[in-house]
């Protein structure tokens, strides 16, 4: 009896441990039932998705890097930079379409350079992308002169601020990129090679996978996605500025891991990453909305940060602890 309940408890814990992100989302939503502000409406859902969309797009790209057992901490600066490039080009008379294309290509080029340094020269991904982020932040500051830049062109503004079949367009773009990334990772040989080389680099190399090219391509995808997110974000708020995106790279990488794409490489997927980002953004959004009339007017902003930090530490610590237990069991 005792043993049975123990093993049942352990089993439940194990299942819940694997689906931490779903549990977290459920807990947040249950907590919101007690709030006086009703967030279970269509408008709230759209507002939430619009806010989360740029981070989701970045996360779809970063998933490729994390599955290949690397990470990319330059995505925040790439995001700033591509928005600034797009707006500066439009202001100097370049057609919107070409300006956006060049901005996205800038991310591709940065991803290519990252890939060269990390894969071809075999340097440590996390420190080289950290340095790259610093460098690009400087470029973004230099280009915008540390001032927010904006454009009068309505065409650029409408990229993210119009509606397509009843949905905000930024959400539609996010979904398209998500589906593309999902298919790329799930149904192509490139995607399967990513999982293989993340699982075991040496084995993948000896099985005849072109590991260098595959991992390199993963970084190119990551850079491109970050640049797309930058264009979407700067179009939504009609501002390109070098000041945001300082915490983005760490938060996005963190969310990807929280979703279930492990740092050990080789497991995870686009859907899980989306869930991870959803946890982070939902936590923020719901904490901002949470209030109980007459009892709690709202949550202090610093308490929000505190809860946020505790959730990050708790989820990643649980992840580590599960791996540790698994090792000890074997």
């Amino acid at each position, binding site marked *: 009896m005792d043993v049975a309940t123990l093993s049942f408890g352990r089993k439940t814990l194990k299942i819940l441990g694997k689906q931490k992100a779903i549990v977290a989302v459920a807990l947040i939503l249950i907590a919101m039932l007690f709030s006086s502000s009703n967030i279970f409406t269509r408008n709230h859902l759209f507002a939430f998705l619009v806010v989360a969309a740029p981070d989701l797009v970045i996360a779809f790209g970063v998933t490729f890097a994390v599955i290949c057992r690397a990470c990319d901490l330059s995505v925040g600066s790439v995001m700033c930079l591509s928005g600034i490039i797009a707006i500066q080009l439009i202001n100097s008379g370049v057609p919107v379409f070409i300006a956006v294309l060049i901005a996205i290509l800038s991310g591709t080029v940065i991803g290519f350079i990252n890939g060269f340094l990390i894969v071809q020269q075999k340097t440590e991904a996390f420190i080289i992308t950290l340095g790259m*982020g610093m*460098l690009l932040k400087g470029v973004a500051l230099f280009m915008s002169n540390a001032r927010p830049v904006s454009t009068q062109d309505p065409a650029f503004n409408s990229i993210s601020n119009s509606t397509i079949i009843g949905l905000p367009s930024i959400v539609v773009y996010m979904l398209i990129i998500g589906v593309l990334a999902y298919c790329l990772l799930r149904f192509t040989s490139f995607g399967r090679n990513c999982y293989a080389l993340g699982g075991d680099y040496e084995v993948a190399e000896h099985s005849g996978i072109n590991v260098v090219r595959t991992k390199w391509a993963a970084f190119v995808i990551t850079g491109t996605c970050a640049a797309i997110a930058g264009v979407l974000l700067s179009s939504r708020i009609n501002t390109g500025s070098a000041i945001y995106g300082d915490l983005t790279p*760490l938060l996005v990488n963190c969310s990807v891991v929280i979703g279930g794409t492990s740092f050990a490489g080789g497991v995870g997927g686009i859907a899980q990453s989306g869930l991870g980002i959803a946890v982070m953004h939902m936590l923020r959004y719901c904490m901002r909305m949470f209030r109980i009339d007459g009892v709690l007017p709202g949550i202090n902003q610093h308490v929000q940060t505190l809860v946020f930090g505790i959730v990050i530490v708790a989820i990643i610590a649980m992840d*580590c602890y599960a*791996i540790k237990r698994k090792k000890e069991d074997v």
Partner: protein
Amino acid sequence: MLKQEALKKKRLNKVGDFFMEYLVLMAIVALVIVTAIVEPRFLTANNFRNIMGQFGPLSFTALGMTFIILGGFIDLSLPGMISLIAMITLSLFDVIGEVPAMIFGMALGVFLGAFNGTLLVRVGATTQAKALFITFGMSQIYGAISQLITGGHPISRLFIEHPAPITQNLSSGTIGDIFGFSSFLDSIPITFIVFLFFLAILFIFQKKTVLGRSINYTGGNFLAAELGGIPTKRIMVMIYSICGFMVAIGAIAAFSRTPVAAPEIIGANYERDSIMAVVVGGTSLTGGRGNVLRTVLGVSLIILLSNCMNLMQINSHLQEVFRGAVLVTAIWLDHRRHANA
């Protein structure tokens, strides 16, 4: 004939190795020469005093970070820790006096560091990537606590009633102010002396004690060190505690420099710059290779770089680009060096 050729090649390799090994030193020498030619103001006594005064918070935090990177880990909780320690120490000035408050701050630093280390050991985060995200989360937590304590308001030193002579003199004072004699020495800033003091202690600790060398073994190969009987978990807690202590010193140096300390900006970017200083100095990120003297080289390069760029009146945003470029190049070259060896 063949032997001679081989010898020659070996000698050439040796010269090349020397250059590669002390690349940062070469870079510093080149930087000094170029700046001295372009800008004569560089070689004035005033500027040297200026440079020595720059060995402030960053040099302390970088010394602490050296041990963590040597042990094969990483700590991103610096911004939150600096903010929390600085705010608590400053708010204790009026309650228990200056020196007790500073001692409390240092103890708090050791405690926070030990907490980080223990947490990582307990949950089994024995790789750099896991440590990266957990300490990032810890930074958010510490920063939030610091904001809650101060209510988000900056603390101004001008409103502290209790006399705080150490804080006032730490970054602006020189040796001459204390001892009153006038010679060349009297223009050396006090922070620089404090820096040399901690550098000497940490250098002896790392090179001459068993514990210090165990850090290198732990970073070199965690599993082998554990099998070899080194208490790796205790070493982990220890290196995080050392870093916490040095961060506390850095926090004190940071708030002594500015009349108004704001919780959200006082610690910003220290984690990034410390890691950069350590890695540029040549301490390997994979752990086990490097020492505190290399970090001094790294810190010197960063300080000299910004001093030279300021003298040459380079746009501050462009300076950021150069700094990032130096970091990326340094890591790249460092990696090539070890890959060839």
